[in-house]
């Protein structure tokens, strides 16, 4: 009698199943985790990339070098002067999220600007893009924004085969100062060079102790090989893993946020660098790791020592997980 009903919900899990697997849902994340551990007044520290950068440099976290900031419309015409002496640069909105409004120029002369995906922009188009950033097109809530001009990250060749164009980055969820879950996000042809999972990027769950792949998903479904490059994702291992986690762990001291997501990229010359922090990191990381986040958070609440310094916490995680 309820056959059609069963069929309709065949792809659905029961709440009980999810609860038992320790999956963290959006409502519970917002109510029990974010509103409890992330004070509202701390948000500007991570929502504004200029502030994040300044704070990070103070505490000794590596970030891409700052070239300049464009605050007002009349400064947009100075862009060529600002980037003088740099062969390449990145323009991003200080209050952007999810890679929106990020323009990566790998080569330029006075008229033509070439992006990493080999799109050619005229000076007018670049000017327009920066204007759009200032007018708040890419910022949270459409508020007026400033444009951050920073140095380009030189991606380590190690990941070349793992990502189709675009920038692979490591996302670490830090809960009360402890790295809880980590994944690497790899761009695909479908995601158009972006590392956003909901646009079709590949998420590779990483063992929090070793940085080795444990699981990989695309569109929420398990995969073993990259759809475009065909490389075996299970062989992925992030080098300088301790340094990656160190950045994530220190981000807790830096911001005071009890639940945060740290996005880290590996630079060929400078090692792991913090790209940005997120005060409301998403839940897809659970699928990439095939692990429930609630379970991990509970373990940290219950068994992990409190009031340790960043290095001690890092040691604790690397030893005891």
């Amino acid at each position, binding site marked *: 009698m309820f056959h059609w009903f069963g069929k309709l919900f065949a792809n*659905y*899990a029961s709440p009980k199943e*999810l*609860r038992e*697997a320790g999956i963290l849902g959006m409502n519970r994340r917002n109510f*029990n985790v974010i509103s409890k551990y992330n004070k509202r007044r701390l948000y500007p520290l991570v929502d504004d990339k200029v502030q994040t950068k300044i704070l990070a440099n103070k505490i000794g976290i590596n970030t891409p070098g700052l070239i300049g900031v464009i605050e007002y419309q009349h400064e947009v015409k100075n862009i060529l002067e600002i980037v003088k002496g740099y062969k390449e640069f990145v323009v991003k909105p200080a209050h952007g999220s999810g890679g929106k409004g990020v323009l990566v120029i790998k080569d330029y002369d006075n008229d033509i600007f070439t992006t990493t995906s080999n799109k050619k922009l005229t000076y007018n188009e670049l000017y327009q893009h920066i204007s759009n950033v200032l007018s708040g097109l890419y910022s949270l809530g459409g508020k007026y924004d400033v444009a951050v001009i920073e140095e380009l990250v030189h991606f380590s060749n190690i990941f070349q085969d793992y990502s189709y164009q675009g920038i692979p980055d490591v996302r670490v969820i830090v809960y009360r100062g402890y790295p809880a879950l980590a994944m690497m996000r790899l761009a695909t042809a479908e995601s158009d060079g972006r590392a956003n999972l909901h646009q079709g990027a590949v998420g590779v769950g990483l063992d929090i102790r070793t940085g080795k792949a444990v699981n990989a998903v695309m569109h929420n479904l398990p995969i073993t090989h990259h759809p475009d490059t065909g490389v075996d994702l299970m062989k992925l291992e992030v080098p300088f893993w301790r340094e990656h986690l160190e950045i994530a762990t220190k981000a807790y001291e830096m911001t005071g946020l009890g639940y945060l997501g740290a996005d880290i990229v590996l630079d060929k010359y400078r090692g792991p660098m913090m790209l940005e922090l997120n005060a409301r990191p998403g839940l897809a990381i659970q*699928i990439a790791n095939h692990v429930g986040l609630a379970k991990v958070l509970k373990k940290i609440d219950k068994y992990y020592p409190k009031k340790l310094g960043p290095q001690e916490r890092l040691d604790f995680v690397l030893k005891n997980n």
Partner: protein
Amino acid sequence: MLKKFASVRKILTLGLVLSIIFAAYSIYYKITYWGFSFWPKQTTKIWTIEAHVSFTPNGDPIKVSLASPYASDDFKILDEDIVAPNYKVKKDDKNKRIILTSDSIEEEQNIYYRILLFDNEDAKGKIAAPVPPAPKKPIMDEQMAATAAKLLKLADTMQGDEVQKVIRLLNQTPPDSTVVAFLPMKKTQKELSLAISRLLSLKGIPNRTARGIKLEEDKTSFSADLMMEAYIDGVWKLYDIKTAKKGKPENFVLFQRGGNSLIDVEGGNDSSIKFSVMKSITSSLNLAGKRAKLANQEDNFNLSVFSLPLYEQNTIKWLTIFPLAILVIVLIRNVIGITTMGTFTPMLIALALVKTGLIPGLICFSIILSIGLGLRALLSKLNLLLVPRISAVVIFVILMMQVMTVLGYRFSVDIGLSAVFFPIIIMAWIIERASITWEEEGPANAWREVIYSVIAAVLVYAIVNNEVTRHIMFVFNELNLVILFIVMLFGTYTGYRLTELKRFAPLVRDN
């Protein structure tokens, strides 16, 4: 963590319980004293009865005693008014009479007594009556008594109950010879009722005459109807003395019961009383104030929104539906887990749909959106700054609405006319957002966002566009308070969203 969480939920639950108790009492109060109901009955009938008393004075001081109607549960007296200059008016509530007195006057007298009754359809029921004493045996001479006995025997051959048998017998055509001996062929209503009364008394059935008028539209200058009431099985039952039909006729108002006359005039001759009836229809809510006054609940009523002028009431009626729409949005977002463009955008679209109708509204929405997206695509080539660009889209939308409305009017297409109901700024933002999503994440994502928003809007519409829901939310506006606490309680809902059950299903289904 758990402790704080539990206490927040406890406080909110307590608030919810208190608000439900308050709302329940308030709803009960409004139904009882103000005559509100759960069903959107738009109108109530109001009857204006005018009794015209006329007589010729004979020089003595005048005393007029007039029967006033019985306020029953089904007809309540809204207002009464006597036009009788030079008279002193006294009301005798116990005997339901109005006494008018005056010194002697010469000329012909006309007194008007006007009452407004409203049809209290919500409360039609039976009225309990005290047990009357056994009727006195009528005094009759021997011959008459024999005829009466014969008649009672004859009556047994008729159909119906005891009373109906008697009435039917006396009204038989052609009349039986025995009947003719008892009652003249050309009988008046009064003679007929007297004959019925005597026969019933002989049988030992308590009875009395009753006078009243049937409320019919625009009846003028008619006399009161005479009815017969008989006490059977513990209640007084009303009978038509001609047709023997049992029960109170529809829209019948009793003026007088028992032996008293409808009107007594001392100091005057040739008195007559004629009635006129006029029906009018009024909004039920308009009457609420009068009902409250009748129930001595005026103070509370004057503090409610229903004491406001109609225009303000209509505005508030529109506002009171919003909390319900908001509740639906909360459910869609936090329990079902559909992401829409902007939090309340679907709600605002839904409220526009209520005004335009579902299908015309959706067609109109699609037209505005498609043309808007097309124009917005052209705009994006111009590389304008954000604020001027969104402003341009707003003006586009306004122009489109004008064109659609004019075309709709010219060609009598309602779809065009409904364009003006869509909130301009919201439409502009939908176009802007959809076009940005289109450029950044592809048309598929843009359409998905729009379609989800429309689905949410239609869901809200389905709940909001119900006459009964709208009526209840307005008339029992204390429900807004209940919804407030429900919404806040959803703020502590930490369960999974419906969409998450699917999203995270791969995590518990091992392959």
